[in-house]
């Protein structure tokens, strides 16, 4: 079965090609083709997972892609337990979201194209996951970037959407800049880009530590861009301009997790290089805290979720930075489920009220029971309430920090967890409970159709149960399947469990007080911490900062350079041209007046002379006679005198 794993990404690609070339006019056919393909991939993925469960030894398959005497670059597929888990997770979430989209995107004029993009995304993402060399991965890495771009800008008539797409592409491209250079460094350090071979070389210390750190950090830049880590996190909130299922699939569950996945793949390097590990962990921790704090005050439902995503991704990166391979990937998996659920729930709400602003919602729980219930489940999960899946994965991260002695990072993580619980329940209470703030919108709201709610229910089920595979008491759980170097068994740490539960509950309780009971007024709080509030509300002014320090100067530079091009280089060219023309002008003058002048001058002289002489020939007979006689007189004079 494993050698045919390439079929997993290939099926959606087939679907993409079919839709683009044949089915673009048929909405039904294209959506069903796409869903069928992703379901096929899901089935294959499950088969692969089953096989890998039986034999967890990593396997590598390669074909020649560029093959020269002195340069070889194969396409590699690499199947190990992490891959197996990831393909299942990706194809599962993708299938659910594609089904959900049947309802959400219903009636969109570019419905077929939406499914084409979705298929292309599934292809790229699955390809990225099964890739076995960093080069292969980079190819799919860029392709998911493209599909992300296309899907963010799906409603490109909105300028803000197309702007967001461009921003996402370019911001991640900046990360890829590092990634690509990292690839080059790695290629020349290890002589290959195959993951297995690189890990082998790293393991046997065949590569200098400095090189490992450099290559690793450079490649990690790609992860920073893709997973929206500080300082390249700015694109993700804007990316929410895309259709909500897209946000759920790409910008919450799968694509943004690619950065985490890459970091996980770089684990041997992280373990080897302490510097790299520290950088990764600090970036993760900082991002987790920063994004969560921004999330506290945002009013756009999707943006809150976006900052939540950034924060959770920070968690994963933090975990990986601390060496928690199992913890990071475990959280990646659980997060995919509950974050997809949250987004789909948000989509369901938006579908009902046609607004993103939570200040115009309220009381919707009474009308949208399924949505509300699943949303609450997901919120509990992300807040880390026992025994939902978020609890187990988050707990594992805390445990890693605890075991590794990273107490500062632990405090940061706990703080972020508190904020997460607070803003999630702020969202829940404001949207689903209390009085409707906008009566008209409330009146029009109704529960979404079945093909939207069924994925919600499935995801809710997963949000509860998926974490159970990693319960610490389990002997053969997640940690004994997906691990790095040796199975990771965290002893159940009851202190941490209690702390995390207390923190989560206190966050929820604060939200309850402020937004359900209203005993603490959010407005007053905002008044009181006005300065902090404003900074948070404006997302620490990152966009403005980048605008002022990078984008605007670049534009100005381009204008200057163009002026330089026209004014200096082209001017020089034209100057030489004109100068030559001037020289030839002088030469021409010389030619005209001196060389030609001599020739023409002779002609002119003769002509002028003749013109003068012509006057003598008057045609007057008597004039001639006069001259004749004058001649006679002269003759006689000469003869006789």
């Amino acid at each position: 079965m494993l050698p045919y794993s390439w079929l997993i990404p290939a099926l959606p690609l087939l679907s993409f090609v079919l839709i683009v070339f044949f089915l673009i006019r048929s909405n039904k056919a294209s959506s069903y083709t796409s869903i069928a393909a992703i379901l096929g991939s899901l089935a294959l993925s499950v088969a692969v997972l089953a096989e890998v469960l039986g034999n967890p030894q990593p396997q590598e398959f390669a074909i020649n892609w560029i093959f020269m005497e002195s340069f070889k670059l194969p396409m590699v597929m690499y199947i190990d337990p992490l891959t197996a888990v990831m393909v299942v997770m990706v194809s599962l979430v993708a299938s659910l979201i594609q089904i959900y989209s049947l309802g959400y995107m219903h009636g969109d004029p570019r419905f077929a194209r939406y499914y084409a993009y979705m298929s292309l995304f599934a292809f790229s993402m699955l390809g990225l996951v099964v890739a076995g060399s960093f080069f292969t991965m980079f190819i799919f890495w860029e392709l998911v970037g493209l599909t992300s771009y296309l899907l963010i800008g799906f409603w490109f008539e909105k300028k803000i959407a197309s702007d967001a797409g461009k921003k996402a592409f370019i911001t991640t491209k900046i990360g890829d800049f590092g990634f690509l250079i990292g690839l080059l460094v790695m290629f020349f350090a290890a002589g290959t880009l195959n993951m297995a071979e690189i890990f082998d070389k790293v393991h046997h210390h065949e590569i200098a530590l400095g090189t490992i750190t450099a290559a690793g950090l450079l490649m990690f830049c790609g992860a920073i861009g893709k997973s929206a880590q500080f300082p390249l996190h700015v694109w993700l909130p804007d990316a929410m301009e895309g259709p909500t299922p897209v946000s759920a699939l790409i910008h919450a569950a799968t694509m943004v997790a690619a950065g985490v996945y890459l970091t996980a793949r770089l684990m041997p390097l992280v373990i080897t290089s302490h510097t790299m590990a520290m950088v990764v962990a600090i970036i993760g921790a900082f991002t987790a805290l920063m994004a969560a704090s921004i999330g506290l005050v945002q009013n756009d439902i999707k943006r809150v979720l976006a900052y939540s995503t950034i924060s959770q991704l920070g968690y994963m990166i933090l975990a990986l930075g601390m060496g928690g391979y199992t913890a990071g990937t475990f959280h990646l998996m659980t997060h995919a489920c509950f974050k997809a659920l949250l987004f789909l729930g948000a989509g369901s709400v938006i579908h009902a009220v046609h607004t993103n602003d939570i200040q115009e919602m309220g009381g919707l729980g009474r009308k949208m029971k399924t949505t509300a219930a699943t949303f609450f489940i997901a919120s509990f999960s992300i807040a880390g309430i026992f025994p939902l899946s978020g609890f187990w994965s988050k707990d594992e991260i805390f445990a890693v920090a605890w075991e590794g002695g990273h107490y500062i990072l632990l405090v940061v993580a706990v703080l972020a967890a508190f904020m997460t619980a607070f803003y999630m329940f702020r969202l829940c209470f404001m949207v689903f409970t209390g009085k409707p703030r906008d009566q008209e919108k409330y009146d029009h709201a109704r529960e979404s159709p079945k093909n939207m709610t069924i994925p919600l229910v499935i995801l809710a089920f997963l949000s509860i149960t998926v974490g159970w595979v990693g319960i610490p008491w389990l002997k053969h759980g997640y940690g004994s399947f997906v691990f790095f170097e040796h199975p990771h068994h965290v002893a159940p740490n009851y202190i941490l469990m209690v702390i995390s539960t207390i923190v989560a509950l206190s966050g929820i309780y604060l939200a309850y007080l402020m937004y359900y009971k209203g005993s603490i007024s959010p407005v007053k709080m905002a008044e009181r911490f006005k300065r902090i509030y404003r900074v948070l509300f404006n997302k620490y002014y990152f966009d403005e900062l980048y605008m002022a320090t990078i984008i605007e100067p670049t534009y100005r530079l381009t204008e200057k350079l163009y002026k330089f091009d026209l004014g200096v280089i082209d001017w020089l060219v034209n100057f030489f041209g004109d100068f030559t023309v001037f020289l030839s002008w002088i030469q021409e003058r010389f030619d005209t007046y001196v060389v030609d002048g001599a020739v023409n001058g002779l002609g002119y002289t003769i002509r002028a002379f003749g013109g003068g002489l012509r006057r003598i020939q008057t045609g007057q007979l008597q004039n001639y006679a006069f001259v004749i006689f004058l001649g006679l007189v002269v003759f006689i004079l000469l003869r006789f005198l």
Partner: protein
Amino acid sequence: MTLYHYLILSAILFVIGMYGLLTRRNAVGVLMSIELMFNAANINFVAFSKFITPNEFIGQIFSIFVITIAAAEAAVGLAIVLLIYRNYKGIEVDNINFMKW
């Protein structure tokens, strides 16, 4: 009367004819002046014949030829004058410059 008298007479007559030739606008007048010059020449011929070769009278023979040529000249000249007059409604010599260039 000596030869000189005749020669001087003929010289004066010749220059008078020349004056006419040079100044007359009327073509007929020009022809007349030419006749005067012919006659001046004839006087010379006859005078030389009388005083220098009195026995051969070659001068007289020549003057007969000259008179003949003068008659022919007058005939052709006047015919041309008539033709010009018919074509140009005028016989002013200084207007007849169409052969110029």
